[in-house]
C-alpha cells in the first residue's frame, strides 16, 4: 500500500493515535517511547511535505474522499508546511528532553498522562496548521487548548493551578470569539472551506456581519497569540508550567495562533478587506509597538527567569504582528522568519531554564548568583539565546529584525525603525541582568555544591542553541520558505 498520498492525514493521525496508546500502556517508559516515536514520524512527514510544497503546488487532501468544499479538506501550502515543520520538529526535540525533566516535576504514576496530553497538544497544533476547514480549525484549537491547560496544571507549584485556570477562562473566551467569527462568515457565505470562503467573500465584503466576523476573529486569535494587552494569561502560565511544557508552548502554541491570524488575514479575507475597510493595520501596529516596549520593560523587572522570558515572548510576538500589519511581502517575510527564529530561540532558552530549575531547584534570579561558574554550559547557552533575542548579528534574531527594519523602511515608517531598534535596547537590559548575576557574582555555598545539568537535558537544548546560530548565518531555509510563502499569500489575494 502506498502511503505517500495520505501523508497530510498521517501528519495528524499518528500523534493523535499515540495519545490513547500512551494511556493504555500506562507505564512511563512505553508511553514515552510511543509518543516520541509518533512525534519523530510526524517530523519526518512534515519534512517530506515541506520538500513537496517547495517544489510543486499546494497539496489538497480530501478526508474520507469527500471532495472539498463539501468534505473537510487538509491543505498544505508553503506557509503551512513551514509551520508544520517547526511544530513537529520542536515536539520531536522536546519529548526526549521531557523524560529527564518531568522526573523531577511530576509524580511517576502520572507520567503516562503527561505524554498523552503532550501528544494531544501536538495533534491539535498540527491540525490547526494543516486543515483547510474553518470549523475544523476550532475543533483542533480546542484539542490543543484543553491539553495545554492540563499540561500547565501539572506544574510542581500550586500557582500552576491558578495559571491554568486563568488560561482556561481566557483561552475559552478567545476560542468562542473565533467560533462567533466563523459562524458569522458561515452565515454570509454558506461554506466552511477556507479557500471556498475566500472566493465567496468579495461579494459580501462590505456587509456588517463580515466586518464583525473580522473583528471577532482578530480579537479571538489575538487572545490566543497573546497580543498585548491580551497577554495576561501568558507570563504565569509559562512560569509555573513544567519546564518541557513551557518550552513547547513558547516555541509552538503562540506561533500556530499567529499562523492562524496570517491565514485569516491574507487568505480568507484578503488584504483589501482587512487593511482598507477597517483600520486593522493601524490598530495592530499600535499594539505591536506597545508590546515591544511595555512587555520588554516588564521583563526587566522580573526576578523569576521564566517569567522574564515569558514577558520577553509577549514583546517578541509584537515584532511578528508588526510584520503582519505592514501588508507587504517584506513585512510578511519578516513576520514568518521571526515566527520561526523566535520559536527556536525561546525553545532553547526555556529548555536551558528547565535545566537550571532541575539542578538548582529555583528560577529566581536573586538565588542564582554565580550560576556561570556552577553551570557554565547552561549559562553560556542562555547568553547565546539572549543575544538572539536582542538581535546581535550572527544570531537568528538579527535576520528577522533586519527584514522587519527593511519592511519598515520600504513603507517609509522611520519612527517604526527607531522603535524596533529602541525596543531591542530593552532586551539588552534584561539579558544583561542575567549576565550580571551569573558571571559577576560569587556563588553562594548552597549553589557552589551543584553541578552542571545532565546531558539528557543539555543535548536537546544545545541542538536548539546551535540552530539559533545556524539560522543566523545560513538563511536560505528560513528566509527562502518565508519569502516564498509571503509571495504566494499576497499574490493569491490580488
Amino acid at each position: 500500500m502506498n502511503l505517500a498520498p495520505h501523508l497530510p492525514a498521517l501528519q495528524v493521525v499518528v500523534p493523535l493515535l499515540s495519545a490513547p496508546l500512551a494511556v493504555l500502556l500506562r507505564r512511563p517508559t512505553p508511553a514515552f517511547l510511543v509518543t516520541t516515536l509518533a512525534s519523530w514520524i510526524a517530523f519526518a512527514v512534515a519534512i517530506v511535505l515541506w520538500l513537496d510544497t517547495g517544489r510543486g503546488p499546494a497539496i489538497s487532501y480530501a478526508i474520507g474522499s469527500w471532495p472539498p468544499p463539501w468534505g473537510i479538506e487538509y491543505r498544505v501550502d508553503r506557509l503551512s508546511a513551514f509551520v508544520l515543520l517547526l511544530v513537529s520538529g520542536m515536539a520531536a526535540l522536546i519529548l526526549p528532553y521531557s523524560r529527564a525533566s518531568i522526573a523531577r516535576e511530576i509524580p511517576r504514576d502520572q507520567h503516562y498522562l503527561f505524554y498523552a496530553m503532550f501528544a494531544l497538544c501536538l495533534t491539535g497544533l498540527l491540525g490547526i496548521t494543516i486543515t483547510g476547514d474553518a470549523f475544523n480549525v476550532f475543533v483542533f484549537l480546542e484539542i490543543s487548548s484543553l491539553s495545554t491547560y492540563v499540561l500547565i496544571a501539572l506544574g510542581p507549584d500550586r500557582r500552576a493551578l491558578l495559571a491554568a485556570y486563568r488560561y482556561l477562562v481566557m483561552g475559552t473566551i478567545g476560542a468562542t470569539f473565533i467560533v462567533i467569527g466563523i459562524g458569522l462568515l458561515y452565515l454570509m457565505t454558506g461554506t466552511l472551506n477556507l479557500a471556498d470562503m475566500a472566493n465567496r467573500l468579495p461579494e459580501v465584503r462590505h456587509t456588517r456581519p463580515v466586518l464583525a466576523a473580522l473583528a471577532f476573529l482578530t480579537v479571538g486569535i489575538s487572545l490566543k497569540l497573546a497580543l498585548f494587552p491580551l497577554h495576561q494569561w501568558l507570563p504565569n502560565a509559562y512560569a509555573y508550567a513544567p519546564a518541557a511544557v513551557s518550552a513547547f508552548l513558547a516555541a509552538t502554541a503562540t506561533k500556530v495562533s499567529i499562523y492562524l491570524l496570517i491565514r485569516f488575514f491574507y487568505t480568507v479575507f484578503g488584504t483589501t478587506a482587512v487593511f482598507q475597510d477597517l483600520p486593522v493595520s493601524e490598530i495592530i501596529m499600535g499594539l505591536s509597538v506597545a508590546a515591544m516596549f511595555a512587555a520588554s520593560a516588564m521583563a526587566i523587572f522580573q526576578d523569576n527567569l521564566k517569567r522574564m522570558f515569558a514577558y520577553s515572548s509577549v514583546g517578541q510576538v509584537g515584532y511578528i504582528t508588526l510584520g503582519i500589519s505592514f501588508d507587504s511581502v517584506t513585512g510578511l517575510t519578516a513576520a514568518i522568519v521571526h515566527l520561526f527564529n523566535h520559536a527556536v530561540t525561546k525553545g532553547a532558552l526555556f529548555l536551558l531554564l528547565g535545566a537550571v530549575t532541575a539542578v538548582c531547584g529555583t528560577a529566581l534570579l536573586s538565588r542564582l548568583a554565580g550560576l556561570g561558574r556552577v553551570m557554565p554550559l547552561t549559562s553560556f547557552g542562555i547568553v547565546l539565546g539572549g543575544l538572539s533575542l536582542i538581535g546581535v548579528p550572527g544570531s537568528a534574531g538579527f535576520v528577522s529584525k533586519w527584514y522587519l527594519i527593511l519592511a519598515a523602511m520600504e513603507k517609509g515608517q522611520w519612527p517604526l525603525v527607531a522603535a524596533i531598534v529602541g525596543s531591542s535596547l530593552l532586551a539588552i537590559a534584561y539579558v544583561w541582568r542575567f549576565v550580571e548575576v551569573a558571571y559577576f557574582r560569587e556563588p553562594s555555598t548552597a549553589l557552589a555544591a551543584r553541578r552542571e545539568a545532565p546531558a539528557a537535558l543539555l543535548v536537546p537544548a544545545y541542538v536548539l542553541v546551535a540552530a539559533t546560530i545556524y539560522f543566523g548565518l545560513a538563511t536560505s531555509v528560513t528566509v527562502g520558505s518565508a519569502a516564498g510563502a509571503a509571495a504566494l499569500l499576497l499574490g493569491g489575494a490580488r
Partner: protein
Amino acid sequence: MSAFSHFSYFVTVFLMVAGLFIVIARGNLIKKLVGLGIFQTSVYLLYIVPGKLVGGTAPILDPAFTRYSNPLPHVLILTAIVVGVATLALGLALVVRIREAYGTIEEDEILAQDGETPNGDGPGA
C-alpha cells in the same frame, strides 16, 4: 421586518454579553465558569437559529417539498457542545484542585495567599 423577527438574535447577544460580564465581574471561580458556560451557549444559538427556515422541512429529498432546513449547523454545534462540556469539566476539576491547594475558591483570597496583586505581579512571583 419587525423587531420581533430578530428576537433570537437579541436573545443570543443578551446571553453573550451577560455571560462575558459574569466571567469578568465575579471573583468566585465557580461563578466564572457559570458565566463562561452561558457565553458559550449563546454561540450555539447563533449557529442553530439561522439553520431553520420558516416552512422548511427536514432535509430528506422528496418531490412534495421544496424548502429544506439546513442540518449542518446542528451538527457543528453538537461538536461545540462536546467541547463546551469538556471545557467545563476541566475547569471544574481545576477548581477542585485549587480548593485542595488553597482552601478557597475566591480569586482575591487566593492571590492574597500567594502575595500577589490582581495583575499577577508581586514579590511572590
